[in-house]
């Protein structure tokens, strides 16, 4: 048992301060992503999540230029983009897809410019990699309160609007007839998605943030049919896979080629992918067996 333990947790794992920060910040980001992600999938808003993730690249690269925490950039553009998407009208799929595509393109164009400036001003490629693929071990303990401060409101939105969100995902008219303010509820949910995406962007990177958002949720809804249990399961899966990813990444410092560790994002996203395939296969087996 203890040899397995030693094999999994390389020496110094529990004493390392960057590891502590990665576990806390990554755990919080994963918890928020799992919970918010379940409602993103349930409400058919994965597309919005992807668009917000792309636009987070813009915000992240801008914040590097301004030398502030990338989380501010991720969240700032996310919340603004969510507002714009709501104004465009997220209820008409075709108009929405076109408008989102155009805004997405413009945002990524800006990101290309900002990243170019980032690299020329710092003469490293670190900024681009950090923004796109995250860098859990360099988050810094001063970012932890910020991560919690952005995560708690996102969780609160889902907890408070749990029933209205479910009801309006079944039928907007039924919800409205019951007195639910459907538009406002939807906007609050979109803001929560923007916050979840920006937290995930800090840990696994802007490009991979939707994997953490919809991946655990996609696994969870193959395991259970109850919305409450699916939400809890998605949160547990997201946190477990993030922590396991951190452990494996720490272990990988002794791996080839250069002994400076493989990216945490690689491990987390791969674990999610494997988990999804596994859930898909067992789900199919269960259906066949009745």
């Amino acid at each position: 048992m203890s040899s397995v333990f030693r094999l999994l947790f390389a020496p110094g794992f529990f004493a390392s301060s960057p590891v502590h920060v990665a576990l806390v910040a990554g755990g919080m980001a994963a918890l928020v992503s799992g919970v918010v992600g379940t409602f993103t999938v349930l409400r058919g808003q994965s597309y919005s999540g992807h668009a917000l993730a792309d636009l987070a690249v813009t915000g992240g690269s801008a914040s590097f230029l301004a030398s502030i925490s990338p989380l501010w950039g991720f969240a700032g553009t996310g919340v603004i983009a969510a507002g714009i998407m709501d104004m465009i009208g997220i209820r008409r799929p075709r108009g929405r897809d076109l408008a989102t595509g155009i805004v997405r393109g413009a945002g990524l164009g800006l990101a290309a410019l900002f990243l170019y400036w980032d690299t020329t001003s710092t003469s490293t490629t670190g900024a681009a990699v950090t923004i796109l693929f995250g860098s859990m071990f360099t988050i810094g303990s001063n970012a932890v309160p910020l991560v919690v401060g952005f995560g708690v409101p996102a969780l609160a939105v889902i907890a408070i609007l749990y029933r209205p969100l479910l009801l309006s995902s079944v039928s907007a008219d039924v919800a409205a007839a019951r007195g639910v303010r459907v538009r406002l509820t939807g906007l609050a949910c979109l803001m929560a998605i923007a916050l979840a995406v920006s937290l995930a962007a800090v840990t696994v990177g802007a490009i991979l943030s939707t994997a953490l958002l919809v991946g655990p949720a996609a696994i969870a809804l193959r395991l259970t049919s109850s919305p409450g249990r699916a939400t809890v399961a998605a949160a547990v899966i997201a946190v477990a896979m993030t922590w396991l990813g951190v452990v494996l990444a720490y272990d990988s410092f002794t791996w080839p080629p250069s002994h400076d560790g493989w990216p945490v994002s690689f491990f987390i996203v791969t674990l999610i992918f494997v988990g999804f395939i596994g859930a898909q296969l067992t789900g199919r087996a269960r259906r066949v067996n009745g």
Partner: protein
Amino acid sequence: MAVTMAVSDSAQPGEISGQVLAVEGVSVQLAGRQILDNVCFAVGPGELVGLIGSNGAGKTTLLRVILGLQPVTGGRVSIGGRAKGRGLVGYVPQKIQLDPDMPVRARDLVGLGLDGNRLGIPFPSRQRRLRVDEMLEAVDATRFANQRVGNLSGGEQQRVMIAHALISQPKLLLLDEPLANLDIGSAQEIISLLAKITQRQQVSVLISAHEMNPLLPVMDRVVYLAAGRAASGTTEEVIREDVLSALYGHHVDVLHGHGRVLVVGHAGDGFEILAGDETAAAPGHPDHSADGALSGLEIQQ
């Protein structure tokens, strides 16, 4: 004659009181088009009323007005004597948005009928569970209570939505085209379920439909909607050539046969089935037609 024609504007305040639903002179204009034109009718306690009209006649708009989702340009609606009927109306939409495979079970949706508008996370209680079970049983949905709503058939989804709408014990149940997209067997099951529930739960029911024949045996009264105008009364009072011709603004035939009714309008050389069975157009003249839908029907003059 108890027919209230929209054109006559003869709704007496005395007639309206004591009604579960009173629609008084409702007009709606959308983008410059007159969708509803001075519509008047009432639904009494425990009545099952059919809202009949072809597609585009304004049925869904009228239901949305009653639900308070569509502002009117004229007239008013009262439910149980109140202008705001929130909490008194259960609504079953034509289609739900939920994708297949989403983790919302039939019992979750029925539970949301109790408190889906409330904030916060619901705490499971024995009493709540019993009420949901009871309601699922009442619509014969117990056997798929734990299945995902998105994966159920159209008829099964209708049952779950009816349970969802009824569990808060509304005074009025509105159903938007519940029989559209259902096969004949499932449609008959939904109709007999609604007739049973109307009696047992003491709820009034307003069902919109473009086919009136399946509803004929159970309807207490009919509201016939054509081009935004309405005529209401018993089927004998409303489904007549003089009343419907006045409503449509041109001559229509009402054909009876085998306990079925067809409303047929003439358009040029051909004719058009305006209501009754599946709205359809066919060439030729109805009484010379060999068309299957009309065989055995006679024009009653």
